């Protein structure tokens, strides 16, 4: 066996330093996350991206955002189509998982043109993961 030794290559030191930085950053982030997690209630926002006619239906593509610091599982959301303040059509969907500060894109199918009325969205229920 060759017992000849040499200094650690520079690039290996660089990768090791990167690992140290990642771990230190990770500890700082996790400490911050631990201190702030669960302290804010779940907050869900909705943003209609587009409405697309599909056959005889209309697909409403919605970006659902979780702006809180806690994640949610089995999030049930409801989309209501209103015309003159009257509820014309209602659709529900479930999002398996939505982490904190993340978004998910979902679609609702409506029989009537949502462009002729007003769309409202609300979160109905969720599970803590």
């Amino acid at each position, binding site marked *: *066996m*060759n*017992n*000849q*030794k*040499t*200094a*650690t*290559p520079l*690039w*290996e*030191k660089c*990768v*090791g*330093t*990167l*690992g*140290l930085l*990642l*771990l230190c*950053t*990770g*500890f700082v*982030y*996790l*400490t911050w*996350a*631990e201190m702030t*997690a669960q302290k804010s209630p779940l907050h869900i926002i909705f943003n209609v991206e587009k409405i697309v006619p599909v056959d005889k239906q209309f697909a409403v593509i919605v970006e659902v955002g979780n702006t809180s610091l806690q*994640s949610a*599982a089995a999030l049930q959301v409801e989309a209501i189509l209103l015309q003159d303040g009257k509820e014309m059509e209602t659709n529900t969907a479930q999002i398996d*998982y939505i*982490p*904190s*500060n*993340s*978004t*998910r*894109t979902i679609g609702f199918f409506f029989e009537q043109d949502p462009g002729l009325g007003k769309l409202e969205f609300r979160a109905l229920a969720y599970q803590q*993961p």
Partner: protein
Amino acid sequence: MARSLNHPAWLGISRAVGGALIFSLPMMMTMEMWEIGFYVEPLRLMILILVSLPLWVGVSSIIGFEETKTLGDDILDVLVAYAIGFITSAFVLLALGIITSETGPGQIFSMLLLQSVPGSLGALLARSLIGSDSQLKFEQGYHQELIILITGSLFLAFNLAPTEEIILISYKMHYWHMFILFLFTLTIMQMFTLSNPDVPSGSLRQWRTHWQLFVRFTSTGYMLAFVVSLFMLWALGRTDGENLGNIINTALVLSFPAGIGASAARLIV
């Protein structure tokens, strides 16, 4: 810090990437692991990483991807392994479409930190997984053998602890199932212990040798596997909301693969 000139260091890094992939791909392609990465309690993830660090240093001193000689070398290897585990996980999860523009940066970071734990272990084990110069130095001491046992149990426990099936199996099993599984695990572990090439075949004619090996490796290995199982279940949030009986049952189920991983560690690594 001194290094052997036997192999170029880039080869060690290449092996580390390969090891990280082999070890953590099953976890990167497991849905539960992505979700746990999103909601894992930060404190538990931090403890998991903190516990892994000294253990990985011990692993590095025995079977690291470089022929390390000093504690500084081992620590550097662990840091390199974490960096490689992190970056490799990032590439794979991006390529698989798990990390998207819809994923929050905090969640990406948490998920990569979680994935980098098994990934970094894979990087450290790479030399024995891929390389041709695997030489475990079991003669170095019993504590290093214990590190091998823990590493082996982690190897399989990390793969299975995130899955729903482990909990479901524990619900389906009765107490007599548990007892049989316990005895079966010990039997399989003892078979692996006895089949170790370090054990002189002539000494196996004496029951005393069987008993000594059972106490020294099998029962100790099972105890370590059980503790590792409990810890992994707790770290990944699998004990939340469960009563003590269910937690013990689930840990007993997980101890089956973890125990086999512990006793077969020399074959795995």
